[in-house]
């Protein structure tokens, strides 16, 4: 089998295991079988093995990290989101309902990536910089953290709507869920701030200016300021939990648009400079 055939097989095996994990977690939580929960999350964790192998094979095949094509960007984003989820659930097993939001979104991201152009693109000299690695790594961590905040926000909305089930009752009270939502937002802000910083240093290195209002630079600032607006609205006007949850979801959508959609909509130095 060709390296790409191996990559594809490993990727789809990971998808299968993740889906099995989703079904298992849903079954365990909806039918209140806590004993099955660990096994289901184990299946999802098992999915990380072929997924990691596929990403490693891709790295060997193309000779650089996952930051040129949507195929590799989405796969690595999904990988990091699932790792963050499993790490958190390992520390907080009661929060396993988070998996019912994070796992499906990550599998969708991975699946969408697998249908895009998998062509191996050579790395242009501009991208051969340590600051790019930080820029991209922390960007993926930010997406993972913001995805966890959205999952917590969804659960918060369900609790606020008075929904009750073995699934939700096992979770902490709405007030605590709201705090965790903001904790995940906070982690995301740390990672997103680092992303902007590393990007500025790299831009100064290769384009001679650390800030030039390039569309993608500007959208990442807008996303950052939107989270700041959410923080200050909570602080100044003490908006209620429901508004906090909806604000978190809206800001997450803006961050996904900034990373995955706007680079293909707005002409920017980011795209133009990748491979002349």
């Amino acid at each position, binding site marked *: 089998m060709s390296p790409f055939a191996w990559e594809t097989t490993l990727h789809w095996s990971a998808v299968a295991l993740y889906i099995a994990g989703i079904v298992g977690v849903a079954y365990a939580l909806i039918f209140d079988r806590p004993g099955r929960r660990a096994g289901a999350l184990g299946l999802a964790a098992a999915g990380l093995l072929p997924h990691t192998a596929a990403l490693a094979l891709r790295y060997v095949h193309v000779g650089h990290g996952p930051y040129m094509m949507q195929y590799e960007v989405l796969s690595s984003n999904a990988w990091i989101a699932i790792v963050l989820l499993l790490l958190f659930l390992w520390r907080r097993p009661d929060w396993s309902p988070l998996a019912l939001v994070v796992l499906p979104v990550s599998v969708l991201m991975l699946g969408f990536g697998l249908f895009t152009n998998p062509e191996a693109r050579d790395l242009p000299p501009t991208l051969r910089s340590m600051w790019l690695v930080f820029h991209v790594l922390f960007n993926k961590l930010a997406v993972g953290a913001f995805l966890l905040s959205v999952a917590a926000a969804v659960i918060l909305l369900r609790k606020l709507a008075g929904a009750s089930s073995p699934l939700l009752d096992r979770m902490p009270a709405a007030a605590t869920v709201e705090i965790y939502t903001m904790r995940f937002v*906070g982690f995301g802000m740390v990672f997103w701030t680092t992303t902007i910083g590393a990007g500025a240093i790299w831009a100064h290195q290769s384009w001679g200016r650390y800030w030039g209002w390039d569309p993608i630079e500007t959208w990442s600032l807008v996303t950052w300021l939107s989270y700041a607006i959410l923080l200050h609205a909570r602080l100044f006007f003490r908006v209620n939990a429901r508004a906090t949850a909806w604000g978190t979801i809206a800001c997450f959508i803006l961050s996904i648009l900034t990373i995955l959609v706007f680079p293909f909509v707005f002409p920017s130095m980011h795209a133009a400079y990748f491979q002349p």
Partner: protein
Amino acid sequence: MQTINIHSMKRFLRSPAIIMAEIVVITLASVTGVVYPQAGAVDGEALAQLRESLPALAALGQDLALDRVFRSVWFLVAVALAFASLLVVAVEEVRRLFRTRFRPFAPAGGLFIHVGLLLVILAAALKALFGAEATVDVLEGETLPPTSAAWAVQKPGVLVSPLRIANPITLETVDAHRYRGGDLQSLAVRLRLAGDATAPRVADVPVNGSMDVSGVRLFVGHDYGPAALIEWQGKVGEPAKTAALLKHERGRRFEGVLAGPDGESAYLRGSVDPAGNRPAGIEVRVMKGAALLSTSTVRIGETITIPSGGSLTLHGAPFWVRLHASRDPELWLFYFGFTCVLLGVTVRFTLIPLPRLAAVPVRTLSCKHRVDARMPQPAMLFALAGLLGLTACSRPSSAEARKLVERYNTVVAEAYRRGDVKLVDGVVGPNEGKKLTGLIGVHLDMGLTLDSKMLSLDVLDAKQSKDHLQVLTKERWSYCDRRIGTGEQVGEKSEDAYEMRYFFKRFDKEWLVDRIEFATPPQFGREPGTWAIAHGRMQGHAASQAESKEAAKP
């Protein structure tokens, strides 16, 4: 009276409503800067198109300075107010921290963020006032004099003069390597700075690297290519000596055009070899209007004569590179400010125990009511769906289909006119590319080029399924053939009408023409003579012509 003013000013600057307004205005300005076309931006024609298509909106945008939002008064006032608010807030936070002896430590996070933002805004102001940038394209072996005029583009800060390097600097060599697939793998330049007493300083500067010369940073980007050193002797007068800088087109190809002394245009193409070295020769096509006067590959030192008079000599093909220079006196202030912001966000959100994450000391805030924003859930769902809907790919409008067809026809017409099939690479897939190679080749073999012009184009229908797009059009064209060398018309001019069906296919996000066919039998303006001229329009006929020509070959 004095203290009251300062006190009320401070209360104004730290009131929640004003602070939120500042952040929201700066955010909306940033969105405007991306969504609304900006004057002098990389994609400058967007503003011209807006003025043409929506003059009223463009006029309003100009009045509100939306087309230069980051230099607009209202944006600068918002930033200045934010700076003042941050100052007031930071002073208060410092006082409170000292009063409480940094217990709890939580507010220190907010303080670091706000002080960091203050420093970043300050750095931006210093750059606008004292920073400077400059750019120039330099040939290998060329020396830049120590003057500001040596730099082609200068962007000095408001309070500083244009940038210059203290000593003459020479570009000795450009070392470029490409991957097997043709993409740029590495680029480095060797710069020699003439010293006064000390020995000259030589530095190899790669992409992402730099050479610092008394506070000015020299560096290179991706812009480089072969330069055709051409001496063009017109019919009369002195010969013109020019370095035509060829720009990267695709793969290992670089292209450019040079105006001749008697109204001609020389279309130049140089390809670096697989290792990335300088081209040994340059493809030269000399055109005058629609006439192809001469087409040949000229080697270094060789001279070609132009049938209409004059001659053209290629003296060399060294590399050129775009050299950048920048002076950022405020750079470290920006980096220090940014580090404070990052430290603050980290302290505020990761090091503070959870219970205190919610219990933020809001004692100093005047506004106590709790906004109980009952978000009507259905409305939010529609809003989210609408937002996501925006990003779903929509059916091709006839305007988009028209643009694709026009792009194809413009490029193919130019390829026929210049006898240069490589031009079509960017608009056709492999099938159509092979066909056009044959058709244009047949013309060149007969010593002719085709001068064609689209008179009208109507898009009748456009249907898309995932990676395939079919466009039905009605077109009217005018053609005539021209003899290579003189440009004299051969045979009659013809006006033809067609209904064409274009089959576009998506190749790595680009719509390329995979094939075209007549939707209905074409109406020719003239009777085909003994030499039925092969042409992209007369697809069926031309193909057989190309094949018969192929078959007729000994």
